[in-house]
């Protein structure tokens, strides 16, 4: 038998994308909305989620799916807030994928929830290419990381529905150019919203909470 060449032309991530689409349409059968939060390690994902849960306590029923390479520190601090927290250990893997989310969702009562946060693994490269079936993607960029990150890691910023510049309380100590950032960001992704916040001091978080309310108020997103 001879060697034959065959055309394949198949997207390697197609299986993940298909699972993600399935998750989204399943979630659409419930009032719940899912937001995937991505950033570098230490940019403030857990702090932002904690603040948000506390703010919406009694208004929205929130659950968290926590992605972590090995530990359960973040899930433990979230479950202290008395909200359902599902831990996914990726076992060294640098991102969550749609299969992991599908499994985690099986442990949540979707009828009893308004909002699910997915705290992705801290990483600006790998996380960006894996659709998790969330309705929205939020990216946090913290001031100490620098304002050049959209140039270095453009993909994650293209996938973002909202970009939060976090830790603005330390702006005086860094060269982050807060004024020109929205122009760069919107050039790359015209439909994204840019917000400046400090999850520590609470400054600017009203804009984020309003964004959440808008997201939850939309029927089709």
């Amino acid at each position, binding site marked *: *038998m001879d060697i*034959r060449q065959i055309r*394949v032309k198949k997207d390697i991530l197609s299986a993940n994308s298909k699972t993600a689409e399935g998750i989204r349409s399943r979630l659409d059968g419930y009032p719940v909305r899912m937001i995937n939060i991505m950033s570098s390690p230490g940019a403030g994902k857990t702090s932002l989620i904690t603040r948000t849960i506390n703010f919406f306590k009694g208004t929205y029923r929130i659950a968290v799916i926590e992605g972590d390479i090995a530990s359960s520190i973040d899930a433990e601090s979230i479950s202290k807030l008395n909200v359902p927290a599902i831990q996914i250990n990726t076992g060294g893997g640098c991102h969550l994928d749609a299969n992991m989310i599908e499994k985690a969702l099986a442990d949540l009562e979707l009828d009893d929830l308004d909002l699910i946060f997915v705290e992705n693994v801290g990483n600006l490269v790998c996380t960006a*290419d894996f659709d998790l079936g969330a309705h929205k993607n939020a990216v946090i960029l913290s001031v100490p990381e620098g304002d*050049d990150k959209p140039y270095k890691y453009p993909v994650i910023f293209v996938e973002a529905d909202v970009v939060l510049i976090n830790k603005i309380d330390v702006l005086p100590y860094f060269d982050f150019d807060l004024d020109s950032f929205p122009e760069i960001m919107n*050039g790359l992704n015209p439909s994204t919203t840019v917000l400046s916040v400090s999850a520590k001091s609470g400054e600017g978080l009203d804009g984020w909470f309003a964004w959440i309310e808008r997201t939850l108020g939309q029927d089709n997103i």
Partner: protein
Amino acid sequence: MHEQSIVASLLSLALEDAKTNNARRIISIKLVVGELTGIEEDAVKFYFGFMAKDTIANGATLEFNITKAQLRCRDCDIIFPRDKLNFNCPECGKKAVEIVGGRELYIESMEIL
């Protein structure tokens, strides 16, 4: 560790197509990989080496076609390569760009026996 899940997906796609084409062995797989995916050729080959072991893709060669990041100016429509330090359009100088290349990640073709 990004590459481990990439290799798992690529292997199952390759095996599926090999089966449809009644292949006894996969000799080589041609991949198109955009530089923005951050995927390392050596790491993919490393994982493929042992993940393909008990399959008809064992020993198959992986060929990489790495594509560069390309930007399209939203105003003048020209396409230009990414400059790591800025995204300014070489024609109009504006920073309104769309990524049109460098995110590819697919199997182009295979040689089968």
